[in-house]
């Protein structure tokens, strides 16, 4: 974990209404593991106090790339950060994705720009498998070519049918699960909306295979001190306990998670 004064190298629009932010952050870029995140202090954003967590899209040498969509006040303010500007980062934070057990066939399941958060994992995994990606429309589908270049087979589903199969990402996932060879044991890695993660967890439970879910929670300090980003998980004695998404997560095994209505 480092507190690093990074600088903006590149910041531009990418298709689908996303922004690509490339930072020079040598210490964090060389240390980050797939599934970890950085906590970023948005420049020129005095109105609100807290840092904002971002999953890492790419890390190459001293460069760290984040992919985001301006959806709230913080990310709208971040849009204006210019090349050369300093940006304070804390990272890498949290527990990322573990490697699959030997012999397991990796599945990636992503909703929207959850795909970007799985890129480092897709590059690092020793085995190439199947990536399922879903979104509302074609503009939500990211990184398909990058994943294919890494050797992954990508199945796309969109709710409006403008790219790939019409419907939710669980459509092609269920079809594959139903037709896979009996000796093909999956291990899944998922990042996306709460409902999608829950749907993956239900399938993992039914099929008795592991699924690693990257949970998204409103976050405060990012290091485990403030207890804002708590998630109910199953305790050893069968009851529940809180886990800090920033410290014990953001990645949890699906059977650990106690599912409730989205907070």
């Amino acid at each position, binding site marked *: *974990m*480092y*507190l690093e004064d990074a600088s903006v190298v590149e910041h531009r629009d990418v298709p689908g209404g996303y922004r690509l932010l490339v930072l020079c952050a040598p210490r964090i870029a060389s240390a980050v593991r797939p599934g970890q995140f950085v906590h970023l*202090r948005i420049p020129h954003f*005095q*109105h*609100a*106090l*807290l*840092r904002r967590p971002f999953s890492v899209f790419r890390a190459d040498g001293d460069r760290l790339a984040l992919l985001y969509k301006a959806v709230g006040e913080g990310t709208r303010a971040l849009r204006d950060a210019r090349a050369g500007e300093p940006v*304070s980062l*804390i990272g890498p934070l949290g527990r990322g994705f573990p490697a699959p057990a030997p012999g397991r066939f990796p599945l990636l399941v992503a909703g929207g720009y959850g795909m970007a958060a799985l890129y480092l994992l897709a590059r690092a995994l020793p085995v190439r498998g199947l990536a399922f990606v879903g979104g509302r429309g074609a503009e939500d589908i990211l990184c398909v070519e990058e994943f294919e270049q890494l050797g992954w087979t990508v199945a796309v589903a969109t709710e409006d049918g403008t790219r790939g199969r019409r419907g939710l990402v669980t459509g092609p996932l269920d079809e594959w699960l139903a037709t896979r060879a009996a000796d093909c044991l999956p291990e899944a890695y998922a990042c996306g909306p709460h409902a999608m993660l829950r749907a993956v967890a239900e399938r993992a439970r039914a099929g008795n295979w592991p699924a690693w879910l990257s949970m998204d*929670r*409103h976050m*405060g*300090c990012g*290091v*485990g*001190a*403030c*207890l*804002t*980003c*708590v998630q109910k998980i199953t305790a050893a004695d069968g009851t529940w*306990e*809180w886990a800090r998404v920033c*410290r014990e997560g953001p990645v949890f095994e699906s059977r650990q998670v106690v599912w409730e209505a989205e*907070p």
Partner: protein
Amino acid sequence: MTSPAAGAAARPPDLTVRLGGIVMRNPVMTASGTFGYGPEYAELVDLHQLGAVVVKGISPQPVAGNPPPRTCETPSGLLNAIGLQNPGVEGFLRDYLPFWRACRTPLIVNIWGRTVEEYAAVAARLEAAGGVAGLEVNVSCPNIKEGRALFGADRDMFRRVLAAVRAATRLPMIVKLAPDLSAAADFARLAEECGADALSLINSIPALAIDVETRRPRLGNVTGGLSGPAIRPIAVKLVWDVARAVRLPVVGIGGIAGAADALEFLIAGATAVAVGTANFIDPRVALETVGGIRDYLARHRLANVAELTGSLRA
């Protein structure tokens, strides 16, 4: 040959402060609830350079706290209702006290209970464990029903809690006061009568934020406590009120995000300060505050930080 006075001025200023028996290398502490139990920030902050660390509230038994959402941002503020989630005193001693054995910085533990007896029990247990420099008695949490309403606003209960803690331990007792706009000085005098060694204020201010689209509160607990720069002038005024009402040293807390803010509290009458919400944004802000106070003292040719305390020219 230089005069003795000139020689004294050239020496680095003395930042040492004494807080009811706790000797601190500088007047900057971390506020309870904003710095975890110590290890959380240890990779980013050299804890040895802090005046003291006040860890998050500890009760006799583990407590789960409030449902999410637990915090939300408001203009220049942070509204929270964590609900005093904590591992209980035995969990704290098992999981965190060993970490502190290797650290020379005074460890101050914020304590609370649901009954008078619980306050006394946790105080006695912490003293028996050793390694704790002092206790901060939390009678002012806005986010549990037993907190401010039961112990912090009722004079009889306030007195009974403090008397029980005083009887249970010889550790320095810092009493954390609520931001009571009309009676803070009264409670401060009461705490002094009950044997408090120091006072700390202010705790967060009861507050409410609403999502108007859904008409729902923005916190799971409905209401919360407001902290951050938004509350600083209120806190400075209450410190000024309280510091003039009692002989006890006062720890100023409320929206400190740098040396200039800390200096306001010292000039208003605080002996020490605690950095709270700002830790979440910049974990090194407490250390930068120490450096900034040192620079200020040198620039104003003050030999000792104590010369600043209560030096308001009003």
